[in-house]
């Protein structure tokens, strides 16, 4: 086995030395005969088919004439023109605003929670994690329906207030805040678990050393805890941001469409509007927007520096 692969790589090396003179077929054949390439092939194909394929299709559709169902037409920018001349910026802004607020709120909620789980409930953290992860076994929309029944007028909250305290409470649903609440609730585990990972990466001695060198609790957190937990925090923030920006159910079920998020516009274009190209164009814009925001975020926080991989 080892022998064979060694021989193969020798052959490959021999070819590559004279590759400039070789026809491309031979070079391709050489590349194909490498064991690494063959081993990576199945995963590569899966990625291509399952991930890149649909994206490529959406990309192509974004440049097709409106209201058509084939990608084999002359490309056009008509969809983008329509989008920019219309009020879609409102949905983009709403989505980004909600996503940013969700991330901000979750950072504040999850950081102390992660600290508590890593440092206080060390023994019971497993149980706590299970309790927090358990809702993930139930579909998002069902959980949101549950909250709807909880918050709706005459529901659990307002019913209790009315019956036992005599305070009339109107519906707490169908507002921007209700949407935000839903996003925070649904995405909490997505922020919490990477953050727990990040927090548990901070060595106890590092904090003790800072404390010993005169830092207050607050300074230890600012100078050591947060910077060292940053990889987990960033990953949590990124996942939450992307999920919240692409959310739809929260705005529909709890928000009563008080705010239209971009995902809802996209869904409408693909279904009720029967306009795949426009839906695809909106999707592409969202991918570009969310992607560049994420990139910018990662650029600001240098992960390499955090991991101590460079100077």
């Amino acid at each position, binding site marked *: 086995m080892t022998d064979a692969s060694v021989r193969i790589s020798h052959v490959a090396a021999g070819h590559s030395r004279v590759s400039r003179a070789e026809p491309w077929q031979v070079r391709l054949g050489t590349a194909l005969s490498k064991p690494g390439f063959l081993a990576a092939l199945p995963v590569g194909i899966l990625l291509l088919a399952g991930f890149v394929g649909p994206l490529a299709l959406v990309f192509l559709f974004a440049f097709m004439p409106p209201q058509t169902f084939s990608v084999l037409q002359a490309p056009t920018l008509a969809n983008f023109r329509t989008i920019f001349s219309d009020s879609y910026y409102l*949905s983009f802004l709403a989505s980004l605003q909600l996503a940013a607020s969700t991330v901000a709120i979750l950072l504040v909620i999850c950081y102390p929670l992660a600290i508590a789980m890593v440092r206080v409930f060390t023994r019971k953290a497993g149980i706590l994690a299970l309790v927090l992860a358990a809702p993930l076994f139930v579909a998002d929309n069902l959980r949101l329906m549950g909250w709807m029944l909880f918050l709706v007028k005459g529901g659990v909250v307002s019913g209790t207030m009315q019956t036992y305290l005599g305070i009339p409470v109107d519906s707490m649903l169908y507002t921007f805040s209700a949407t935000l609440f839903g996003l925070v609730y649904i995405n909490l585990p997505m922020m919490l678990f990477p953050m727990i990972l990040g927090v548990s990466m901070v060595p106890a001695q590092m904090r003790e050393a800072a404390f010993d060198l005169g830092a207050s609790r607050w300074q230890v957190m600012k100078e050591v805890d947060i910077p060292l937990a940053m990889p987990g925090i960033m990953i949590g923030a990124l996942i939450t941001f992307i999920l919240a920006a692409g959310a739809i159910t929260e705005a529909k079920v709890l928000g009563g469409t008080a705010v239209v998020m971009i995902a809802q516009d996209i869904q409408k274009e693909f279904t009720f509007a029967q306009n795949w190209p426009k839906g695809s164009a909106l999707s592409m814009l969202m991918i570009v927007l969310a992607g560049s925001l994420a990139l910018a975020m990662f650029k600001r926080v240098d992960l390499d520096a955090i991991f101590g991989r460079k100077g």
Partner: protein
Amino acid sequence: MTRRNLLQSFSQSRRAFLRDTVSISAGIAAASMMPRGAWAAREKEMNIYCWEGYNSDKVLDPFRKEFDCTVKAQGLISDPEAVNQLRAGDTKVWDIINLNNAWGRRQLYPENLIKPLDKAKFEPLWEMMIPEFKWPYKWSTSDDGNELLGMIQRYGPSGMLVNTEKVSAATLEDEGYDLMLSDAFKGKYAVLMYDDWVIMHVVIAAGFSPFRELTDDEIGKYETVMRKLINNAAFLSDDMNAIALGMINGSIEGSFPGSVYSVSAARYDGNPNLRCIIPNKGPEEMGGKAGVCWMELTSLVNNPQLSPRAEDFLEYCFRPETAKNVSFAEGTYNPVGQMGDPKVMALYNTEELDAFQYDTLSADMAKCADFDIIPSYTKLHEIFSAAVREKA
């Protein structure tokens, strides 16, 4: 249109999941044992894609037992989405498709996505239908009337929903859509977000027929009405149960639009004060009709390996017990066209009939135009989407 009862659909979906898991694994096991492509391989399986109700065990279990057949059923929540999936190649998956009337004749058949039925076999079944759907019924045939595209079962009128304790049925019938669109009603209603239905009813409220091309001037008027409707609404939701709940707990008094099925479950549950109302006066060009009625067409998918059980299923749906079960499926109660047959009618009691407002059903249907394709839909939908996005 979405029809689901949230509490029931939970247990429903769990059961469906288990069933699907079993049938899928059985399918894989079977597929690995016999060569593919054999037409005989599909004698014992059938896949249906349908509005909620047809996928309930109450409807499917007897069929499974009698025909010794695996049935995989998936509920759909949007006609256009289902059409998209068939367009995208899902015709290889499904045997039966159940959509609102106009889609079959206007899109599915012209695009070769469904298969005409054997007229000799299915025409006699139309004997059972109520007078409104007498043979040869328009929406069950191709444009030229030559082909039978599917069978009609559930139907219903669409107008507005109201809590009759707050606004009397008679007042709303007389004053029509204007009442809900008046400033006095601001914040007292929800919009049921089935886009095509909102658009149709707003066009009618603006005074035109949605089923012809509209002029720019008319579209301008439509936009004014649409923006007012959206801006004045308490909330917008595509969940009819959330809207029914709002009417029961008093946070809203009505809904625009709304069909009988959106309140039938709540009515059966002891809220007879919730009601679907069709205004008395509509645009002249629609013959004064102010509502729109829908009926579902159940068709054979143009599947290259269509299950022979699919035809059996269409016949099975016309049996009196099955028709009743479809009519009173989980979470949504609807009248069915087969109620023209006394054997079917005999299966209902008074409460059940009252759930779908049987007392005024024929009168309401008479005030409705048939659901059809909306020629100016693209433009109208853009205006609608913009109004929702820019909701004040």
